[in-house]
């Protein structure tokens, strides 16, 4: 379990699959994702088994401090040689949108990425119309790196995909580290 301020991140379990299915079948949630086909229970079960034991991707369930499961986030394509990973987040329970849970969960994930996994760079992709997502990522410290023009077809038109990134050095600057650790040693 990785503890944030308003959220905590735990490993996902097979028992989470029905919740994933409900979230990823919700058109409002789906519209911001790259998933095309409606997911099935059977398909999600196969996905779950595949990601188990894959060292290059890790998915974590997001819970509130009270233990309510509200979403999922994780790293995909961790590149250990270049210390770089992509990340993604979904708050599936819409009643928890716009209250800072996603921001807190991502901040918790980034702290883990830089303090524990020793990553150098964490990036994400987001549709340019996903303003809620972009605002959250900017707040967390992601910087805009580029716009992949017309790289996705959805809703009857081609849309742009944005690439946003946090580098370890930027993160450390923002979060006053390792000064804290050094102080503990004194």
């Amino acid at each position: 379990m990785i503890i944030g301020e308003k959220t905590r991140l735990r490993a996902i379990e097979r028992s989470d699959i029905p919740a994933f299915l409900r979230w990823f079948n919700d058109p409002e949630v789906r519209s911001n994702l790259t998933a095309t086909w409606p997911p099935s229970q059977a398909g999600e079960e196969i996905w779950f088994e595949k990601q188990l034991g894959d060292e290059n991707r890790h998915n974590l369930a997001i819970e509130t401090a009270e233990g309510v499961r509200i979403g999922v986030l994780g790293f995909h394509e961790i590149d250990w040689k270049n210390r770089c990973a992509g990340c993604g987040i979904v708050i599936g329970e819409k009643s928890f949108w716009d209250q800072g849970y996603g921001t807190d969960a991502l901040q918790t994930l980034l702290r883990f990425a830089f303090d524990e996994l020793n990553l150098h760079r964490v990036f994400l992709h987001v549709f340019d119309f996903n303003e809620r997502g972009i605002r959250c990522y900017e707040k967390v410290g992601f910087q805009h790196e580029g716009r992949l023009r017309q790289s996705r077809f959805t809703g009857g038109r081609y849309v742009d995909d944005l690439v946003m990134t946090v580098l370890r050095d930027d993160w450390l600057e923002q979060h006053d580290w390792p000064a804290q650790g050094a102080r503990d040693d004194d």
Partner: protein
Amino acid sequence: MLLGERIRLRAPERSDIPMFVRWFNDPELLRYLAMYLPMSQAAEEQWFEAQLNDSSGHVFVIETSEGVPIGNLDLFDIDSKNGQAGCGISICEKPYLNQGYGTDALRTLLNFAFREMNLHRVFLQVFDFNERAIGCYEKLGFRHEARLRDAHFLEGRYVDELIMGLLREEWEAGEGRGVVVGRQATTAAQSPPVGDGT
């Protein structure tokens, strides 16, 4: 076989494998690619068999009109739903660098991608220090879309990777497809065919 002006693109064969192993063990070439481990004949044989059944990519050998193999190029991550693919090119026989062969080959591939495969966008990834390649891509009409800061670690430091993209409408409207090769003599050098062993 796809015909360019001074080159042609053909499918790779098992008999090309020793040549690929020679090419992709050349340090001067590798520094432009997202490959860093020495490559074995066995690994390359395995890659060859895997790509035969992989419809998400296509690899071509670039030959001069006289039939001399000088490099290869590929489309990868072909995504028909979104009308996208990545491309990568390497001119591996050094005497053929800087003579317009890479530009010709890439132009031939782009015509195929947009006019036969019905793609909407082709992108590529290139290290920011690979100026020769970037110049070639710009000439063909690729636009700069992103700079991935510190995305690769090589030669003791982190380097930036650029993403460049070209849309079909730009290709059809652009100068890139009509550039006269030879006199301007700029060539595609190497861009990282990220994620495959070509």
